[in-house]
């Protein structure tokens, strides 16, 4: 397992602000760099510009060196990659490499990892969306020390001006007169007053400069406005975000489809998480919508399926054409809805109330009579801030593994990790937490890639055309302790099945 190295920066309790997913800023990824299978974790810093930590594990020995370089996925800033950093294997584990990445601006980054070893070399592109999450308050010790130094320096400069007036202009050996001493006291008083005024102005400037910077730099999630129209129709509007507008060149406000859809909508009933819906709203073509809000990239419409009444937490995943993802959040109160049956890629599940069972079961019954089993290594506790592998197996009622899982939106499966207070929501695929659209964009920039040809897809185990079998696995790290519900979605016999598991994380 990859061990998590604690961040060098003091982390105040992680703010909820984060771009893709909610409260889950680290990137977990696996893929093929030529002949090598690599698992990559990137811990992004709280403040951008900042230093991210990257940890890479090669699945097999034989990799002698890794070279990493961060660059934007698209745009002007992607043309001239700086020279890569060279990583040597760790002394304790020759398959483990770690290093640092300098992310100098928010945006849709990728890290190119080139592995060199016995089998030759290969490159993988890992999308890393970077957005400033929080500034750091000054530690008390530092503040006290700076305050003390400030007092010392003001006292000293006052005395220096006093000394200057009293004796500075006297010939060597001459003694100061009474008038010199009086003048010195006056000079000191004036200096003190000027110093106090300058410090007050300076303090005011510091506060305003800090506030302006924080305001400009910290990620702001666009608002999601949800409303219900007659006929079981839900309309969604994405509000404007000044943060995105300021970074239009590198983040952009135009959307691209991510594994087949412009928006992935998740509705989870509060607070018990006993109803889960995964829907795909569309932008109406030529249809006039009563707008909830005139601004933003536009409206979406979802014809609701039959849904049970309740207060629902809404998560909407979108990807911009830079590869930068956002997860928008809202809440909506829904009445009992008698709607259309689920079609296409839409799916739903009912589940027990979260945290109900004394011990969280590792088996989830699927609607077609099969079962999903969570293969936990040793049943031991789960820890936060650690890369974990979630391995699941689907078997029939007799306990025999099925061999006919089908791709669901192009992948072996999709998993959603949600904390019981909804402060964490992560939508993860077998190759990790990066959105598919960003992975494809990044792969296109690799030297030797030929546009949307077979090469990019071959790097992703989830997109391989070989049959899926009965197992699916996801790399993920919980960002903090707590009770989580994990929804795992696979496709079997033409239906989307959702397994539900609870996990207590320490």
């Amino acid at each position, binding site marked *: 397992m990859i061990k998590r190295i604690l961040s060098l*920066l*003091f982390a105040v309790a992680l703010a909820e602000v984060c771009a893709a997913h909610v409260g889950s800023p680290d990137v977990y990824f696996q893929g093929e760099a030529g002949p090598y299978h690599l698992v990559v974790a990137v811990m992004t810093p709280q*403040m*951008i*510009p*900042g*230093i991210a930590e990257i940890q890479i594990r090669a699945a097999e020995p034989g990799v002698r060196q890794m070279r990493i*370089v*961060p*660059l*934007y996925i698209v745009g*002007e*800033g*992607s*043309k*001239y*990659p*700086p*020279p890569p950093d060279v990583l040597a294997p760790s002394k304790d584990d020759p398959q483990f490499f770690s290093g640092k990445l*300098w992310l*100098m*601006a928010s*945006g849709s980054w990728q890290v190119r990892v080139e592995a060199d070893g016995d089998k030759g070399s290969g490159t993988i592109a890992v999308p890393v969306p970077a957005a*400033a999450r929080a*500034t*750091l*308050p*000054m*530690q008390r010790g*530092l503040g006290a*020390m*700076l305050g003390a*130094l*400030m007092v*010392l*320096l003001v006292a*000293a*400069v006052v*005395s*220096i001006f*006093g*000394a*200057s007036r*009293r*004796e*500075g*202009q*006297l*010939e*060597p*050996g001459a003694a100061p007169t009474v008038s010199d001493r009086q003048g010195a006291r006056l000079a000191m008083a004036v200096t003190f007053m000027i110093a106090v005024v300058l410090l007050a102005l*300076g303090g005011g*400037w*510091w506060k305003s*400069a*800090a506030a302006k*910077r*924080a305001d400009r*730099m910290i990620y702001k999630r666009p608002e999601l406005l949800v409303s219900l129209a007659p006929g079981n129709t839900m309309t969604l509007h994405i509000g404007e975000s000044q943060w995105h507008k300021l970074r239009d060149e*590198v983040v952009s406000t135009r959307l691209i489809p991510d594994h087949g859809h412009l928006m992935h909508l998740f509705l989870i009933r509060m607070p018990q998480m006993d109803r889960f819906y995964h829907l795909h709203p569309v932008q109406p073509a030529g249809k006039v919508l009563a707008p909830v809000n005139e601004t933003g990239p536009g409206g979406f419409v979802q014809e609701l399926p039959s849904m049970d009444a309740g207060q629902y937490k809404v998560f909407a995943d979108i990807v911009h054409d830079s590869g930068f993802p956002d997860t928008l959040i809202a809440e909506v109160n829904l009445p009992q809805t008698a709607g259309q049956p689920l079609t296409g890629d839409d799916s739903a599940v009912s589940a027990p109330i979260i945290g109900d069972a004394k011990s969280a079961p590792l088996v989830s019954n699927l609607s077609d009579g099969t079962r999903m089993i969570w293969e936990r290594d040793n049943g031991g506790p789960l820890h936060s801030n650690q890369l974990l592998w979630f391995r699941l197996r689907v078997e029939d009622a007799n306990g025999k593994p099925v061999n006919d899982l089908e791709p669901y939106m192009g992948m072996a499966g999709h998993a959603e990790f949600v904390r019981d207070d909804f402060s964490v929501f992560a939508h993860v695929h077998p190759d990790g937490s990066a959105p598919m659209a960003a992975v494809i964009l990044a792969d296109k920039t690799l030297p030797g890639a030929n546009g949307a040809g077979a090469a990019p897809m071959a790097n992703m185990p989830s997109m391989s055309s070989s049959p899926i079998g009965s197992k699916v696995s996801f790399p993920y790290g919980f960002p903090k302790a707590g009770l989580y519900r994990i929804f795992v979605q696979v496709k079997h016999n033409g239906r989307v099945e959702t397994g539900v598991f609870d996990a207590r994380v320490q």
Partner: protein
Amino acid sequence: MAHSMPMDLAREGLAERASPKALAVPWYIWSGLVAVSSIAFGLYWDISWHMTIGRDTFWTPAHLLIQFGGILAAITCSYLVFATTFGHNPRLREASVGMWGFRGPLGAFLCAWGGVTMVTSAPFDNWWHNSFGLDVQILSPPHVVLAIGILGVEIGFMVLLVAQQNRADGALRAKFTRLFLYMASIGLFLHLMLLAELIDPNQMHAPMGYRALSLGAPMILVAYSLASDHKWGATIIAASAMAMRIFFLWTFPLFPATPKLGPVYTNVTHMVPLSFPVLLIFPAMAIDLVRQRLGNRNKWLLAAALGAAYVATLVAIEWPWASFMVSPLARNRIFGMIYFPYQFPSTLHYLAYKFEPTTAAEMARGLVIACVSATATSRLGLAFGGWLAKIRR
């Protein structure tokens, strides 16, 4: 005194060299010159580093040069203060001022103050970068604290030097004056770096550049030329500062370097220098001429004349010069209009050759403000220079 041999003899030696009848420049003046030059050139290198390579830790050569200058200044001044306070040398003590129980040359205290301020800015700057990001802004609050510290070190050594000058005469005094003018030109060199973002050629057909140049620069030129008592003090200061800038403009791009930090928007291959300097030698000459002709008049009148002459000459020279600099004739290594930091998108390079727009009314208003600033700061310069001219300790 007979029983306290080698230490006292050494201090006697020190006193000999510091006394009014000394025949040579004291060692601590040379030390000060090296320290202040090290800080100033280190800062220039650091700015160039950030435009070229980007990636930076506490220990880059440019930072080391700045830190070395600060440490050298601190050691020099502490030694001076301790030698004066605890040494048994009456001549040193006579030529000293007292503060907090210590005695030493006035400049040494100010310089030490500057050094402590520089050191104070380091943890502040570290926190600021951790909190608000690693990009470099010239005028962030911690950088302003650093700038005040550097100013303290620089003016501290100026005071140390001018006290020597004011107690000397003849050939030695002339020597001190030359060193003083060199130190003053470093002060102007530092000030011009502070203004770097406001006075590029494409900004010199608009008011802001002239207003910025009418704040600190007249005060520096007036004060230090007055204190040096040299007929062409301001001219020498401006010419030296310009020469330093031009020297670095011609030499930095000879060294290969590439950006180590993305995103990279301009493909840089050698160290990016700062721009060709504003032609301050001409307004400086105007200052010298006005002082020569009107030196004994009422100080406010003199200040008004200095301010007006400065701004008028500055505009008359810089306006056509800026037109030359944005033209294709200046796009070569001599005038340097071909260098861009790696952070600057190549699609925007054309902006460097396009004047920032303004109106005649804005320009007129701006120049009036510039004249008023130049007058006010010339008056301050006269006061400051007059004070420096009287320092003896």
